[in-house]
């Protein structure tokens, strides 16, 4: 499988009246054809902004891509003009967003919005586009597709609207689908429907996918690779099982430990909690952004020097971590000390 997307040292900042917001602080990764990458992070982790930057969707000003490149099929997207970018967006890379109500135009019928891209990118005429649009709605599981083309977004429920968004996203057979929290606003039973649908379509259409979410459960079910972001940087990345079974960043470990599970009785104890709050993105990050919330494992160096993202020596290839500390060794040491004190 070839490389589809290569992000190199992407840095995005916002120059606001209250000062500079350091949103994305050097993000680099590659995505292969057909791969599904799950990006996990909290609000302000830079997960959404980095995706919007790739597609030229951040408002400039106040936003600015300071440096870095996003190479998609041999072309650097950052350097494309607005018109060139418009031809990539929608046709080769599609994006679906969290809130299907605000990302659909309320005064245009669903049919109009679906056929717009078909006519623009694929050069179809109205009749061809209408036929294709009905096929697409049918493909995403909307019953009575032909008739529903004449409906407006408010005539659809939340789950159905997200299906429409997916149909629009897939209308031009993109090579890459970027989904930014597409199921966060939906109920769990509807979320399960949408995830099942997207998985099926991904396999049928053989597209690569970037799924951005804060829900580690969703990522566990859908991705090949997981990428954990914090403070505008990648703190850990790797094959999904390697990261869940053997997390190397204290942040990943903290997140995994803080989640109660629906399939197991937690035993009634307290939840493991990460102290403090996410970093203020208006302050230029120096060192490991998670260090202030990481009293157990941090080192002096975490406060002064930013750890590079590097291969974990004793894990599978592609399991990367940005940390100055050796998490398994420290956890073992803590365990031993606990035992000693216990005796």
């Amino acid at each position: 499988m070839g490389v589809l997307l290569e992000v190199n040292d992407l840095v995005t900042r916002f120059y606001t009246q209250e000062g500079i917001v350091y949103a994305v602080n050097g993000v680099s990764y590659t995505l292969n054809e057909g791969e599904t990458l799950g990006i996990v992070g909290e609000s302000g982790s830079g997960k959404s902004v980095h995706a919007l930057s790739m597609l030229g969707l951040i408002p400039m000003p106040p936003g600015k891509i300071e440096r870095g490149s996003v190479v998609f099929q041999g072309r650097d997207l950052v350097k494309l003009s607005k018109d060139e970018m418009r031809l990539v967006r929608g046709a080769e890379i599609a994006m679906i967003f969290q809130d299907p109500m605000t990302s659909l135009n309320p005064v245009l019928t669903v049919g109009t919005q679906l056929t717009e891209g078909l006519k623009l990118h694929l050069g179809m005429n109205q009749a061809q586009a209408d036929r294709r649009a009905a096929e697409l709605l049918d493909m995403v599981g909307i019953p009575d597709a032909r008739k529903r083309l004449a409906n407006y977004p408010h005539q659809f429920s939340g789950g159905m609207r997200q299906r429409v968004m997916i149909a629009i996203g897939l209308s031009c057979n993109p090579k890459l689908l970027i989904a930014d929290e597409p199921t966060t606003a939906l109920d769990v039973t509807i979320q399960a429907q949408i995830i099942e649908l997207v998985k099926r379509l991904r396999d049928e259409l053989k597209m690569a996918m970037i799924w951005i979410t804060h829900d580690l459960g969703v990522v566990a079910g859908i991705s090949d690779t997981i990428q954990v972001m914090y403070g505008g940087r990648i703190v850990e990345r790797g094959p999904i099982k390697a990261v869940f079974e053997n997390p190397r960043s204290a942040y990943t470990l903290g997140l995994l430990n803080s989640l109660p599970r629906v399939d197991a009785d937690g035993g009634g104890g307290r939840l493991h909690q990460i102290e403090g709050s996410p970093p203020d993105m208006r302050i230029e990050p120096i060192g490991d952004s998670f260090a202030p919330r990481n009293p157990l494992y941090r080192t002096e160096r975490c406060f002064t020097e930013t750890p590079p993202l590097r291969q974990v020596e004793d894990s599978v290839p592609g399991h990367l971590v940005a940390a100055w500390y050796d998490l398994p060794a420290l956890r073992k040491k803590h365990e031993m000390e606990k035992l000693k004190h216990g005796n």
Partner: protein
Amino acid sequence: MEIKTATASQETKQQREVILSVRGLKKYFPITSGIIVQRQVGAVKAVDAVDFDVYKGETLGLVGESGCGKSTTGRTVLQLYRPTAGSVQFEGEELTTLRGEELRRIRRRMQIIFQDPFASLNPRMTVGNIVSEPLVIHNVYNKKQRREFVEELLVKVGLNPFYINRYPHEFSGGQRQRIGIARALALNPSFIVADEPISALDVSIQAQVVNLLEDLQKELNLTYLFIAHDLSMVRHICDRVAVMYLGKIVEIGPTNLVYNNPLHPYTQSLLSAVPVPDPTVEEQRQRIILGGDVPSPANPPKGCNFNTRCPVAVDYCYQEPDPELVEIEPGHFVACHRVT
């Protein structure tokens, strides 16, 4: 041996003291039509004959999808909405007939924490004023005592009392939720409705707030009605759980019984739809995917409410009236024709 059993049963009896008893609670919102003369043409049956008890010191979870009536139930219990029918007894007093001063007096004992810590705090009031407002309204303490008490409360919920003169926008989401909790605690209530208190918070902050709620419960002997859609968190925090669908409770019971042995097909599919943060488990999980959407509560289906989406519905589920709750094992009730 006999003595032991006696103490044990006495203990359970003590735990089982009912603090809140809800019977046949209904809340219909009218749908009107007409411009000058408004006529009622229908009703949204947000809560449609709900029965449950809440025991002292426990946490009862109320779960379900958006529009199922869980928040309306919470607010109707507190008389923030006046019920269309039914009775709500709190600490032995019937709330639905109380008015004015009598109702205000009893409201000191029951409070609410809201979902959105950004919308539920007045941006023009300082933290001190927000937290002390209930004390002012109910005329508790003089000014100096109030200030001291508010500082104490802030410490209790994990905020620096130094922040007392700051405004809500200066705080993060998790801190604002702590302010909301402090306000709810100000009048020393015995019962708190927590309406999705953590859904607006970041994952790493949710555990902090849940731990705080649990610590406060132990310390102050609080009873919670915990309204949520996060079924994993409900399993962690709740002693018992009630599952709502289209304005009715379809299953209620001790948390472990409901989660390990869900009886209603809706509960089963709901639980199977929750993603588990473990790729190995996710690979093997069998999901029961429900078709379609929740029907409109203005126009519920004939027969069982769930029959439009139910994977196991048979003829009589469409013909018989909506099933009643029936006890299947001790404390575990379900409303389903296929089970009972």
